[in-house]
């Protein structure tokens, strides 16, 4: 019986097809495309408002005649805002790099109307070579130990600079001395990169860390350039998870950094919020550092005694604070 199918196969009247061009099909789709969720919501809100206007007028007239109200204080447009989030990054070196390097970094980063500050909560960095520990930095501030630190995690989106990544704490103790001291809101930067096609949407709608995300990668770059894979919130564009691959080979043959981002907030720059985010050294912080190449026992120290983790100075004061 299989001969019958083979015979039918050989008698295929149209082995291939020439479909209409996509633009033609797309033009037809344009006519039938359903309105976006935002438009539908906007339409629903509009209809609702139109319906509420008469009722609102009646209520307003009643209230206005019965009660005296002080004028409402409106919020001035263009007022500054704060953006805060927490990151946790894990660095895994390539297997054939000859050295193992693992670091875990938890930090809260703060943007104030485009100007950025980092509030460092915990650093645990361990540098190893051939199984021997050569440098250990550990500092826990319980959310109060404050330190300038350029992790290079999200700011790399705008200006990709690997040299800022490893050992950034040693080379960049003060924000104002760092290249790119003016940072941007990561969501704004991602939007800009998407519009310039430097970031490309791969897929959308899948779950990551329990949230619906959109996957982005950076556009074609040189083989030496790191490859970024970002999982962002489809609505706010805020990054949730970032994978940075330093090399053409897939991990573990290339070094890999994984950054998870959480607690993203865009809040008003009120005196209370400003006070919460003001950077000041925390005298009780536990800092353990041993110099590179020492390999000796770690010693407890204050933040000031560890040059690579010098506490912030007046330069880290918030603008306008």
């Amino acid at each position: 019986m299989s001969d019958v199918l083979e015979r039918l196969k050989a008698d295929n009247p149209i082995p291939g097809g020439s479909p209409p061009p996509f633009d033609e099909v797309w033009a037809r789709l344009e006519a039938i495309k359903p309105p976006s969720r935002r438009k539908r919501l906007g339409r629903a809100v509009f209809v609702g408002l139109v319906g509420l206007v008469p009722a609102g007028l009646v209520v307003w007239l009643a209230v206005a005649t019965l009660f005296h109200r002080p004028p409402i204080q409106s919020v001035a447009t263009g007022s500054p805002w704060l953006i805060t989030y927490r990151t946790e990054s894990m660095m895994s070196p390539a297997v054939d790099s000859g050295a193992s390097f693992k670091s875990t970094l938890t930090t809260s980063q703060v943007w104030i109307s485009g100007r950025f500050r980092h509030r460092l909560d915990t650093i645990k960095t361990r540098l190893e070579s051939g199984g021997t520990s050569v440098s250990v930095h550990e500092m826990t501030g319980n959310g109060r130990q404050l330190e300038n630190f350029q992790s290079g995690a999200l700011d790399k989106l705008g200006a990709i600079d690997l040299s800022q990544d490893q050992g950034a704490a040693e080379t960049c103790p003060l924000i104002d001395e760092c290249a790119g001291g003016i940072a941007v809101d990561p969501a704004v930067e991602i939007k800009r990169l998407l519009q310039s096609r430097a970031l490309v949407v791969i897929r959308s709608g899948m779950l990551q860390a329990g949230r619906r995300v959109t996957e982005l990668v950076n556009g074609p770059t040189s083989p030496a350039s790191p490859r970024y894979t970002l999982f962002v919130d489809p609505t706010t564009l805020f990054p949730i998870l970032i994978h940075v691959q330093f090399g053409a080979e897939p991990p573990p043959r290339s070094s890999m950094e994984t950054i998870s981002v959480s607690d993203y907030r865009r809040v008003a720059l009120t005196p209370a919020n400003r006070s919460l985010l003001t950077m000041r050294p925390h005298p009780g912080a536990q800092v353990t550092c041993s110099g590179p190449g020492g390999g000796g026992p770690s010693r407890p120290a204050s933040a000031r005694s560890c040059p690579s983790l010098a506490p912030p100075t007046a330069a880290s004061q918030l603008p306008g604070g």
Partner: protein
Amino acid sequence: MGGVPDMSIDVSEVWRRERLERLFSDHAEAVHAYARRRIDATTAEDTVAEVFAVAWRRLDDVPDHALPWLLAVARRVLANQRRGERRRGALLARLAVEPAPAHESEGEGDRPLRAAMARLGDRDREVLMLAAWEELSSAEIATVLGCSRAAANVRLHRARKRLVTALERERDGSHAVGIGVVS
């Protein structure tokens, strides 16, 4: 909060358009060929457009292995078109029995086989065409027909048997006619 930037770029819309373009570049040819084997060229183009319109509306439902899903949509679109034709008293029967009008312009082909196919019912003909012309696996046929894989296997097996029988009858009939002519 007036200083907060507008984040109104619609990423999902960009992604949807890119996905649809990928689907189209990967499968439009196969969908068009599927339609063209069953209807005329103009209607086939309309069918392709309609299939991708459905895909656009239901993009979240389109599986990664999209071709069987798209062919299932094409099958329903064609069925709707045929129902419309039937209502208008058009030549549905011809469309069903002569799967591709282009067929005729491309030569006689295997006439006994086509005659045998014409003897089969729509369901048998469809499953055979999916297996032979669309070259789908039984799992893919099941997706297109909206049945289980086992059911698709059974349908294909029975359709083959009926095609063999129809071919034998066709041969016997031709033979009888030939004898009649000679005598």
